[in-house]
């Protein structure tokens, strides 16, 4: 059962549309796994709808409606079959057991980042960075092999973690698919995958591409990169 959800103010920033793109991606993926937060999100949308309904009226510019109808007529001819593209993208997903039950926004993200190039961070940990259309945040998958222990690490920026497959634990508890965690700088932790299966996490880290390592996860003097 999912026990960790985005905090209310993050949910509100998401519904208001002010949450940064990469964090929005993590919240969207959580919503696709969590009916409880979906319901809360709908209520937050209703606040937006009520504020719209109660807005001051400001007349649009002259001829706005006619201009719009012209555009609608022009576009009527070329309505593109957007759904084709989606199913096409899905069929290209790699046959990787950790990638089978992904929320649809993550599925699309994977399809857009193929082939995934996994880098070995440590014997227990692999990662691949994901392009999401922005460069404010570092977005990546991390997979910990079954029973694997990662190095203890800290973060220079806030990190959001969404468990997607398998489970991991740290000093505070065990986390299951759908759990949404926020780790702030100074919160040292050491994720360990459970023994039964490997663990896949989606992570979004607020950190400029910078000096020592790119991600908190990589701040480890013993890390070595090997291709593949």
């Amino acid at each position, binding site marked *: 059962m999912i026990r960790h959800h985005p905090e*209310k*103010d993050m949910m*509100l*920033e*998401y*519904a*208001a*549309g*002010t*949450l940064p*793109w990469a964090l*929005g*991606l993590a919240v*969207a993926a959580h919503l*696709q796994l969590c*009916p409880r937060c*979906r319901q*809360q999100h*709908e*209520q*937050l*949308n*209703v*606040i*937006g*709808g*009520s*504020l*719209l*309904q*109660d*807005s*001051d*009226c*400001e*007349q*649009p*510019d002259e001829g*706005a*409606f006619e*201009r*719009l*109808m012209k*555009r*609608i007529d022009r*576009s009527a001819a070329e309505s593109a079959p957007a759904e084709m593209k989606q199913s096409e*993208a899905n069929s290209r997903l790699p046959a990787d057991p950790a990638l089978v039950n992904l929320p*649809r*926004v993550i599925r*699309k*993200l994977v*399809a*857009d980042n193929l082939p995934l190039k996994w880098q070995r961070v440590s014997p227990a940990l692999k990662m691949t960075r994901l*392009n*999401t*259309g*922005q*460069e*404010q945040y570092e977005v990546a998958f991390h997979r910990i092999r079954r029973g694997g222990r990662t190095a203890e690490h800290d973060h220079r920026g806030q990190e959001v973690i969404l468990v997607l497959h398998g489970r991991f634990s740290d000093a505070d508890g065990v986390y299951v698919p759908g759990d949404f965690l926020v780790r702030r700088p100074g919160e040292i932790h050491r994720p360990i995958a459970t023994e039964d299966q490997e663990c896949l996490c989606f992570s979004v880290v607020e950190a400029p591409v910078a000096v020592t390592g790119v991600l908190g996860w990589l701040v480890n003097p013993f890390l070595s990169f090997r291709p593949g």
Partner: protein
Amino acid sequence: MALEQRTNGIKVQSEHNRDDDWSTLLLLVGSKRDRAAFERLFHHFAPLIKGFHYSRSHQAMSPEAADELVQEVMFRVWRKAPSFDARKASASTWIYTIMRNCRIDYLRRNSRHLTESDIEVDDIWDETPDSQPFAVLQQRRNERDIAEGLRNLPAEQSHVLEKAYMEGKSHSEISQELGLPLGTVKSRVRLALKKLQGALKRPE
């Protein structure tokens, strides 16, 4: 509906009917591509969409940008109307979500942090209806309770919500602008949401 009329009085009931009207028009646009219905929706919602972003009390955008946004939002309303589900949301809430996504697109186009990607705003702010939407009555009651709750919030709480939704400000931007600690802004937001959502949970 008859029951609601007795318990909630005439004013609320008439608001219901208005919103039902907009939903009906939206359904007509979706199923029959009804232009007369669309024109009525436009004349109701276009001034609200513009006023949401540019008015005496809120200037999130220039009037020209707000006009462009109106064009884009109503264009998408026309295109997406076939997927409008009156069981899931009122017309104003549904249009709000389209408007929000248009605004994200607009801000993104003007951002420096953009890279090439297939991910679109509708993938992240995805309002595809759930398989099990609320029952219609429940949903309308929720919408009405939230609208009423909003009007009854203390000014300092509704102010923060308006800044977030209407001016598109993040909590930290709001804290800078109002000269308040971030924690205070967050706690006002939480208090406001607690009140609004508390109203929803009371037994029927």
